[in-house]
C-alpha cells in the first residue's frame, strides 16, 4: 500500500464534511461537519509529515487542533445565544438581516 492512500482518505472525509455543511440544516450538525473537515486536513498533515520525513506537519496539525478547539467554543456559544433568543438551532431561522 502506498501512503498516498492516507491523502485519498483525507480527501474523501473532507468532501463528506463539505457536503454536510451544504446539506444539513441543524447548526450543530453543520459544526460537526466543519470539525470533520479539520480532522481530514489533520490526517493529510500527518501523512505528509511522514512522507516528507519532517515533523513540521505534525506541529501544524497540533496547531490546527488548538484553533479547532477555540473555534468550537466560540461557535457553540454563538449557537447558544441564538438559541436563547430564537428557540431554534436551525440555520434557516437565522434570517434577521434579510429584508
Amino acid at each position, binding site marked *: *500500500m502506498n*501512503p*498516498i*492512500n*492516507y*491523502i485519498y*482518505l483525507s*480527501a*474523501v*472525509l473532507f*468532501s*463528506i464534511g*463539505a*457536503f*454536510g455543511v*451544504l*446539506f*444539513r440544516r*441543524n447548526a*450543530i*450538525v453543520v*459544526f*460537526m*461537519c466543519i470539525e*470533520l473537515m479539520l*480532522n481530514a486536513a*489533520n*490526517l493529510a498533515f*500527518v501523512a505528509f*509529515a*511522514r*512522507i516528507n*520525513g*519532517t*515533523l*513540521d506537519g*505534525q*506541529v501544524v*496539525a*497540533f*496547531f490546527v*487542533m*488548538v*484553533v*479547532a*478547539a*477555540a473555534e*468550537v*467554543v*466560540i461557535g*457553540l*456559544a*454563538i*449557537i*447558544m*445565544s441564538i*438559541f436563547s433568543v430564537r428557540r431554534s*438551532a*436551525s440555520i*434557516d431561522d437565522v434570517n434577521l438581516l434579510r429584508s
Partner: protein
Amino acid sequence: MTGILASGTATVSAGETFAFWLLGGLCVLGALGMLFSRKAVHSALWIATTMVSLAVLYLVNAAPFLSMVQIIVYTGAVMMLFLFVLMLVGVDASDSLVETIKGQRLAAVVAGITFGVLLVAGVGGLVVNQVVGLQTPTEAAGGNVQAIARLIFGRYVLAFEVTSALLITAALGAMVYTHRERLVRKPTQRMLSEARFRSDSVPRTPLPSPGVYANHNAVDTPALLPDGSPLLDSVPVPFQVEGAARTFRTADGRAVTATFSADDADGEGTA
C-alpha cells in the same frame, strides 16, 4: 513504545495496510453516519467513531503525541461540548425538510460529489516516489514528544505564543456571547417569601406528610382526614399518578381506597 516508534517507517507493512483499510472504512462509515443521521445526538456519536479511528491512524503514522491529543481534545473535550450544547438545545432537535432555497439539496449533492471527485483527481496527480519516514528526526530528538517539543518551543514558538492569546480570547468570547444581562433585579428570599404569602394558589404551610399505618408506611399512602377519608394532597406529587389506586387498612380495620384522577388533588377516596 518501541512498537509505536517503529511505525511510520519508509516502508508500509502488511499490518499497516490492514489497519488502514479497517480504520479508513470506519472513518468513512462514521462520517456517512453523521451525515445521514436524523438526530443530532446520533450524528455526534458517529463522528466520535470517526475521531477515534483517526487517532489510531495517527498512531500508525508515527504521531503518538497527536493521537493522544486527538483523543483528549476531540473525543474528550470537543465532543463533550457538542453533547452538552445538544442537551441544552434539545436532544430531539432534528432537521427540517423544508428547502429554503429551491433545489438546494440537489445542488448540494452535485457540488459535494463534484468537489470530492476533483479533490481525489487532484491528489491522484501527486507522485510519491519514496517515503522518507520519520525515523531520523524522531530518533535524533529521542522520541516523538521530544521532537515535537523542540519544534514547538523552537521554530514555532511565536505561533505557540499567539495560540495562547487565541485561547484566552476564545474563552472570553464564549463568556461574552453566553452572558445575559438581567432585566429585572434578582428577587431576594424576602421578596419570594412575601410573594408566596400574598398568592392564593401556593400553600402557606408545609404540606401534610403521608400516612403511617401499622401495615403501610410507603410515601404513596395518603394520610387520613378527621372524617376518615384519605387526603390525597399528602402524597408527594410524583406519586400522584393518574388512575393509580392505593388500598390500605387503617388501625380500626377499615379498608380505604384512594384513587388519583386527572386533576390530581381531586381524586376520590372510598372507605
